[in-house]
């Protein structure tokens, strides 16, 4: 089973490179869709089937469709990749700091193996739902308010104002 994990991760990273380096935004979007697929595969392998399916349902099936829809609506043309090498170098130090920090942290804090035996039901809909509506119900409610606020915000933003009406 390990080989599946490494295959999925490798492909996810490969396609995420496509997100950044594809010239056409539509190709970027499609690469991200593929990346999300493989990440969802990783989730399933890590004993999180519910999250894996939700990833496809919400991320790929709703958010990415929205992205591609808008790209098609606006008919985005290809753009040149910005930034000369100088520009790139200017920002390169920040990721570097994160790299060092991360490797450091992972060397110190993390136990080597992740194979704590978990039972069959770990990560199932029932299991996650119990936790979500039990101890974290407040977070759940706040998330719903965030979504409601976003919904109202979108309606206000995209609604044509009086002035613009022909």
């Amino acid at each position, binding site marked *: 089973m390990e080989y599946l994990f490494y295959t999925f991760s490798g492909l996810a990273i490969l396609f995420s490179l496509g997100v950044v380096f594809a010239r056409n935004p539509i190709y970027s979007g499609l690469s*991200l869709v593929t990346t999300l697929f493989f990440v969802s595969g990783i989730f399933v392998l890590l004993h999180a089937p519910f999250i894996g399916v939700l990833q496809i349902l919400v991320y790929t099936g709703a958010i990415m469709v929205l992205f591609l829809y808008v790209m098609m609506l606006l008919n985005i043309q290809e753009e040149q990749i910005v930034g000369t090498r100088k520009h790139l170098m200017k920002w390169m130090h920040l990721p570097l700091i994160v790299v060092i920090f991360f490797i450091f942290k992972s060397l110190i804090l993390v136990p080597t193996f992740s194979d704590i035996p978990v039972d069959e039901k770990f*990560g199932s809909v029932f299991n996650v739902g119990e936790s979500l509506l039990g101890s974290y119900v407040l977070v759940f409610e706040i998330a719903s308010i965030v*979504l409601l606020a976003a919904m109202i915000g*979108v309606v206000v933003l*995209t609604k044509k104002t009086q002035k613009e009406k022909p």
Partner: protein
Amino acid sequence: MIVPLDHVLLVSFALFLIGLVGLFLRKDALTIFLCVELLLNAANVAFVGVARSIGDVTGHVVVLIVIAVAAAEAAIGLSIVIRLHQNKKPLEVQKLNELKG
């Protein structure tokens, strides 16, 4: 399946790094949004990996909330992009230097 947590976190980090580089390199607003989604996903991988490793389902709950927030963010962001396009503004973020709609 025995995959060391280090490797899961490494994958998460690689995705995060790529997203970060994209955030700095790209100039159009839509691709930058895509890179932000990549960053959120990298965080999700780390959360699920750690949840598996310590046998606690809290990580999954966090991922659910992140997905909900990502949906909200995408909706608002895309409506702003559509608004910019309606007003004939460029979608390159460096040229968007005034707030007046």
